[in-house]
């Protein structure tokens, strides 16, 4: 919550003037008849998407010129709210003059951007983004009818956020690469979930196949498992060569011990390393302030040995 959220803005105040104009006077409304299409030497394509019971339904008419595959006329009819009607109208307009293969590239974001008055201000409020998604879906439907192919062959990947067109693969990759821990971070990185918010968690505007909360949890769990798996693959200390043991001990000293000694102006080095049966004998020598420190042979010494025994291997014995 914040100041801007305390008094709910009017839904309609957040529609662009273009949305309002096209709701009041759609430019590309109506049907295309078979005869009209024939007169244009074109094939008539009629595609339906949505249903009244879902709250949105749109029908797209294309006259597709024979030979060139160019859309020479595009109109629509729509059952839906003002933004659905305006989005459908703009969608039909964007199809006009394009080939079918070009038209299939039109996304809901293209439709929404085209409806903006100011390029930086969204044409519709977040909860209305799904209206432009309808426009995108009906184009896919028209293409599949025109080409006589299955609609699913046009869907490249699993789409999680229809509004921002972010796929499952993208979201998983972003979580992994950036070590994301919250849904807010996913939204900030990808815009997924920034608009109608349905994909964030169950219970939003629409039921979805994937939700960001689940993807985040599953991906993070997978990351933990993989990390644990990688750890398990590391050879145990006793299985290492003496050279590897030395490197492991040096790495631990660098990370956990030397910073503390350096704080007090001292340091330490390994002067020798040898194996004696099961044991690994580490000979150390102090440097700097440690050389004259009273506890160097008592407290500090036992701290170093205990830490190495506990964190690296029980088999380590430290000598001076």
């Amino acid at each position, binding site marked *: 919550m914040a100041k801007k959220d305390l008094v709910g803005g009017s*839904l*309609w105040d957040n529609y662009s003037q273009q949305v309002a104009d096209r*709701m*009041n006077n*759609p430019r590309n*409304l109506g049907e295309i008849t078979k005869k009209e299409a024939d007169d244009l030497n074109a094939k008539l394509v009629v595609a*339906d998407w949505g*249903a*009244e*019971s*879902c*709250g*949105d*339904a*749109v*029908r797209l008419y294309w006259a597709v010129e024979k030979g060139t595959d160019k859309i020479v006329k595009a109109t*629509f*009819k*729509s*059952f*839906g*709210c*003002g933004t*659905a*009607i305006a989005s459908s109208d703009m969608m039909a307009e964007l199809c006009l003059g394009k080939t079918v293969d070009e038209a299939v590239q039109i996304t809901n974001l293209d439709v929404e951007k085209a409806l903006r008055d100011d390029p930086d201000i969204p044409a519709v409020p977040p*909860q209305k983004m*799904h209206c432009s998604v309808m426009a995108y879906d009906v184009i896919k439907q028209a293409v599949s009818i025109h080409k006589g192919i299955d609609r699913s062959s046009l869907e490249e990947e699993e789409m999680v956020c229809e509004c921002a067109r972010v796929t499952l693969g993208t979201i998983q990759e972003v979580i992994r690469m950036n070590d994301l821990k919250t849904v807010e971070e996913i939204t900030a990185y990808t815009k997924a979930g920034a608009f*109608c918010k*349905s994909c964030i968690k169950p219970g*939003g*505007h*629409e039921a979805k196949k994937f939700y960001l909360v689940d993807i985040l949890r599953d991906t993070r769990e997978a990351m933990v498992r993989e990390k644990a798996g990688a750890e398990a693959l590391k050879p145990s200390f006793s299985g290492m060569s003496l050279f590897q043991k030395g490197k492991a001990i040096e790495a631990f000293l660098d990370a956990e011990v030397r910073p503390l000694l350096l704080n007090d102006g001292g340091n330490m080095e390994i002067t020798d390393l040898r194996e004696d049966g099961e044991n690994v004998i580490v000979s150390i020598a102090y440097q700097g302030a440690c050389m004259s420190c009273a506890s160097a042979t008592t407290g500090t010494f036992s701290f170093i040995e205990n830490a190495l025994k506990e964190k690296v291997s029980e088999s380590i014995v430290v000598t001076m």
Partner: protein
Amino acid sequence: MKQVYLDNNATTIVDPLVKQAMDPFFCQMFGNPNSLHRFGTETHPEMALALDRLYAGIGAGDDDDILINGCATEGNNTVLKSVFWDIISRTEKKRIITTQIEHPAVLHTCQFLEEKGAEVVYLPVNDEGIVTPEILRAELDPEKTALVSIMWANNETGLINPLKELAEMTKAAGALFHSDAVQAIGKIPVNVQDVPVDFLTFSAHKFHGPKGIGGLYIRSGVELVPLLHGGEQMGGLRAGTINVAFMVAMGLAMEIAVDALEYEDREVRRLRDKLEDALLALPDVDIIGKRELRTPNTILASFKGIEGEAFLWDLNTKGVAASTGSACSSEDLQADATFQAMNVDADLAHTGVRFSLSRFTTEDEIDYTIGVIKETVTRLRTISSTY
């Protein structure tokens, strides 16, 4: 352009007489009624008069309480949470019985209490959209039930529940009964002598009073745990400095509304029926709920092939204000809960438009609205892909 307000179930115009009555309490009699000095005490007679009017308006007895509060949402929260603290959290009676068609002020509060350990039963409605005694009986276990909360009339449909039977059945089972009467007061008679409610909640702005003031009726002898703790106002049952101006306004608004009930039943009903007949004369229009079962001011209509928000948009461009329970106009795209509970066709859930009149609605306005609706239906059905 002509402006016609037909959204009176959302809020109403403040009656100019009511506005006039509260005016002196801003710059002249602005004192805190709890103060000992004259500025405080001079507010008392008008406050007492307001209480008289409120008590008379709903038939409350002198031993009963009507707490003046912020709104019906506050009243509903107070009742439900009081029962939770007083009974549900301390005894074996864990059940609240309410309905699927309640206002969010009741529904969301019940959902919250469910998380805290209450057992909540959400009653369905019958085919006519009514909560019948038979539906209640099925869940009314005397061993388990702490409270029954059922709205007097529904905000979307105007359908009136048989409150007397529901309340009597609840009392016989030894449970408390609450009714959210927000949509009933000023539209139909509401009398706590006839209907044995323990709690009743209402809000002034639904009957031509100002927003931000409401009332909570509590029958004599019924325990209440306050929602707001603080000063001694309202006998400690609702702390917070009393909004004297709005309390005075609510009192007068109640008196006028109750006096106007006869007009409401005759004239508002006549205009409502005129509008409804005109809608039904159009093809493929459904009205939800039988006329005689509804408050006299409300119509919930469904126009085949036209989405509710688009309908409102067109009405608004021509100066007519109505409302929709249609999912598209809200944050939540799920179909309206009332529609779902009524098992109406899923198609209808997106095509509903509510017209709600008041005693300020004129015949001229209704005639104008009928013309606008005809134009709207024609235009939007031309656009529609499903008509």
